[in-house]
């Protein structure tokens, strides 16, 4: 491990690099990405939807020039979709083709269980790649607890065991990101193997900065207003709080509509971009309409 080459020199470098690809990180995010590279450990990214968990992996790959390999998790995902699969049809053809020749079963078996007949799926692909890669295992909380076990070997040892072929060890250690929306507790075994990063909604300044970078033509004051209003809305008890991506969408909309100053009316008429549930929209509109006194009460009661 000692004289291995690392991707990043310092935390600062990670931060700057991410900024260059338009991802505004904070001390925590940059620090953990740096650490993951140094320790050769996967990062488990958790947090509310739309706070840039997946984007982080994408940005890191863009920044370091590594190829991004993505495994989207879903209920029912299994070995043959995540790791590898034997190409049955091709194997069959081979057997058929060799029928006439005088070959022992052993040679045929050796033949059909070789690299040629192996279909690599994302996890195996990430391991066998020669060039540096970033592996993104998206929404890992969607698979069943049992399927999680599939990931353990690759996450801790960066290797895959194929019964017929033996163990394939990684040529390079990929930078692995796992994202989770926390719809269920992940298993201890999985968590133990990862560095844990929780990405929450950004604070006011960071959100404003994000809006400014992602929506190039926006004015400073409008971005500020957008960030403030979004923060206020997030304080309400909603079914689904507006995410960062929705903030950006809203800012874009306001810009397209040529609005320079958000007042209660414009906010109300465009709020359906921020909020996706009718009950949430109704609630927010009600709140925006409210007079000063009632708000104070609500704030005090929080």
């Amino acid at each position, binding site marked *: 491990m000692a004289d291995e080459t690392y991707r990043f020199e310092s*935390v600062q470098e990670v931060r700057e690099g991410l900024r260059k690809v338009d991802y505004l990180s904070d*001390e*925590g995010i940059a*620090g*953990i990405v*740096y*650490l993951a590279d*140094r*320790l050769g*450990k996967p*990062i*488990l990214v*958790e*947090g509310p939807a739309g706070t840039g968990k997946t984007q982080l992996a994408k940005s890191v790959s863009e920044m370091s020039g590594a190829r991004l390999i993505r495994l989207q998790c879903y209920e029912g995902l299994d070995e043959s979709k995540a790791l590898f699969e034997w190409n*049955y*049809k091709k194997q*069959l053809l081979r057997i*058929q083709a060799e029928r006439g020749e005088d070959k022992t079963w052993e040679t045929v078996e050796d033949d059909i269980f070789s690299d040629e007949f192996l279909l690599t799926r994302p996890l195996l692909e990430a391991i066998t790649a020669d060039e540096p890669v970033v592996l993104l295992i998206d929404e890992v909380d969607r698979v*069943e*607890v049992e399927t999680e076990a599939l990931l353990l070997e690759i996450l801790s040892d960066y290797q895959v065991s194929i019964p017929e072929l033996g163990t394939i060890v990684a040529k390079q250690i990929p930078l692995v990101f796992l994202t989770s929306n*926390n*719809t*269920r*507790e992940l298993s*201890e075994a999985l*968590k*133990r*193997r*990862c*560095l*844990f*990063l*929780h990405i929450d909604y950004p604070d*006011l300044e960071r959100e404003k900065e994000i809006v400014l970078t992602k929506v190039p033509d926006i004015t400073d004051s409008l971005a500020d*207003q957008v960030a*403030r*209003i979004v*923060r*206020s809305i997030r*304080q309400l*008890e909603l*079914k689904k709080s507006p995410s960062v991506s929705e903030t950006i969408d809203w800012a874009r909309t306001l810009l397209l509509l040529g609005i320079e100053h*958000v*007042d*209660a009316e414009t*906010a109300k008429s465009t709020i359906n971009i921020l909020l996706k*549930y*009718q*009950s*949430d929209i109704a*609630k927010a509109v009600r709140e*925006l*309409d*409210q*007079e*000063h006194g009632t*708000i*104070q009460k609500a*704030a005090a009661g929080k």
Partner: protein
Amino acid sequence: MTAVRPEVAAGEAITELLAGFIQELRQAGLPVSLTENLDAMEAVKHIPLEERDTFKYALAATLVKNNTHWRAFETVFEVYFSLRGSRYGIGDGEQDALAQLLEELEQQEQMQGDGPRSGSGGGENMTPEEIAEMLYKALQRGDAALMRAVARQAVRRFAGMEPGRPVGGTYYLYRTLRNLDLDAVLDKLMQQARHDSPDPLTPLEERLEQDEYQHRIDQLKKEIEGEIRRALVADRGVEAMARTLRKPLPEDVDFMHASREEMASLRKAIYPLTRKLAVRLARKRRHGRKGPLDFRNTVRHSLSYGGVPAEPKFKYPRPSKPEIFVIADISGSVAAFARFTLHLVYAISGQFSKVRSFVFIDGLDEVTRLFEGVEDIAEAVHRVNTEADVVWVDGHSDYGHAFEVFWQKFGKEISPKTTVLILGDARNNYHASQAWVLKEIEKRARHLYWLNPEPKSYWDTGDSIVGEYASHCDGTFECRNLRQLEKFVDYLA
């Protein structure tokens, strides 16, 4: 920062320091495994200790794998390193704040030009008026360093800390906050904002301003809390403080005595749990996904491979949908628990297609429809509390009668697929128990479980007759906090 770090012995010393820290975390109830411990040791080698924030995040990333534990971690971190850290050059920026404060004071003096002042700007003995003014300025500008300085001053001035006095931090916090009178400050800030703006503020603008100031005030409160903690640690030593500061982790918070804030975090934690519950109860459906070989189907598919059965097909077991009946006590004696219960019921009904919920005090009513299609849980709970017809005579719990009603009205609908969950403390006010109903339910239903929010030691004392009911249940569980609820869910597996 002047702290000297003995470079040579540093490695060893850090190991020791970390070991102590991890010990402390474990005592606070955070699960830290050996591998995580090793990871942390490895991690600190790569992170310069001087960068306190990065150092903190690095430790957190390796040691804390659950976001709800973050606060507990932060507290332990602060307490533990506030004293010991300085030896290793892990400062906490206090000096910076102090320097800032002095500078600030000087500026103030120059601006006001009000001649000589006693104590030559040391900031040690500021008058309440000066503090109030500084506070106002800090909040108006949202200047973090200045806020920290104000917090420091305010604690020194108002908390009235006496060395060795065995009082908790909350007492000092209360005293400090009372003296600062933040509500009045907020009003003043708002007035100023209104005054500064050229046009009268619209309600929206006003709201935004207020949110901003409120946010700053919350930050100030946090600073003050931290300051008090630091002072207490300095007074009583790390070990003693760590023990008194320890707050229960979210999963250990008692449902019955949860504060508002804790309740909110509990509610968030329920959703993953109900999903887990759903998975567990539905396990039968997935388990053994590959059933026996489906011969017909296999032969049918072998046609495309020239008669070779290359793609074996299996019979998939037909999933049986679990049906859940939740019967919850919502009487006064379990009021706090009932609120939680309703959230739980709501969350469960979001996960299962066939959930029927019932609430009772001395009468019983079905509330399934109140939860259906309602997107706002607060509204659903409100409707349950106002619309459900649960009072029969006097509104004191009568389990016996409620069960009787349940049996008469809904007993027939219990099938062998049904799991029945009863939530309540079984305090029956000395009414007849009618335990035969449970016996009947148990006969018909797949499972019957009882979750009791009371500590086990209170069971069967006074008018609690949980023991009598328990004999007919498949399981009776103490369910006072998330950890226990989770245990119950695990038990189902």
